[in-house]
């Protein structure tokens, strides 16, 4: 959704539309996190009247899907791939292998015994 996208590109890594989209979702989630947690608290609190909790539930489901944390997916910062990502290095497995063999990742070396 373009309203969540930054007016000017603010990414320094490999960019394609999927990465821009994921980045926008991350920022949207960050902005709405406090509201989401407050609503989640109301929903889970059994001491509140059922009507309040139901309303909170509805409000939570009616928030934009970009503000949901489940929409966020880790992507490779070198190639934008969405599968086979090593979270510690934010890279896909192949890019990780190439960078590691080239010695660009400190502390990583090929195992051999």
């Amino acid at each position: 959704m373009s309203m969540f996208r930054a007016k000017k590109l603010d990414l320094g890594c490999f960019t394609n539309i999927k990465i821009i989209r994921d980045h926008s979702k991350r920022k949207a989630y960050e902005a709405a996190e406090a509201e989401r947690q407050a609503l989640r608290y109301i929903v889970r609190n059994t001491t509140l009247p059922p009507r309040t909790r139901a309303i909170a539930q509805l409000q939570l489901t009616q928030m934009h899907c970009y503000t949901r944390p489940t929409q966020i997916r880790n992507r490779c910062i070198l190639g934008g791939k969405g599968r086979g990502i090593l979270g510690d290095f934010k890279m896909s497995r192949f890019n990780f292998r190439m960078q590691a063999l080239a010695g660009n990742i400190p502390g990583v070396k090929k195992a051999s015994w």
Partner: protein
Amino acid sequence: MAVPRARLLDLMRAQCELFATTFNPEGVRTGNKILRQRLRGPALASYYPRKVMTFRDFQDEFKPLELEIEEEGEVDRLEHIAALKARGKSAPKKKREANTSKKK
């Protein structure tokens, strides 16, 4: 030997007062675990590296020292366009605003 429940509850209340936790002997679901969670938005939003500096910023940085830096790619692009223009093959000019505003 069995300790009466009332005494245990007293102990629990004292514990809660001491460690500033909520006294909830029935284990009613108050949703406090949501409030205890840390916010993970900042960590998630800083996943992709942000743009630190553009070439324009770099040029501007050296302007007060009267040093000029050429961006090779940009120079190549402008040369290419100039060559196209000389052959009459460049992109057409943009339409005026007045013409486009008539359309919906």
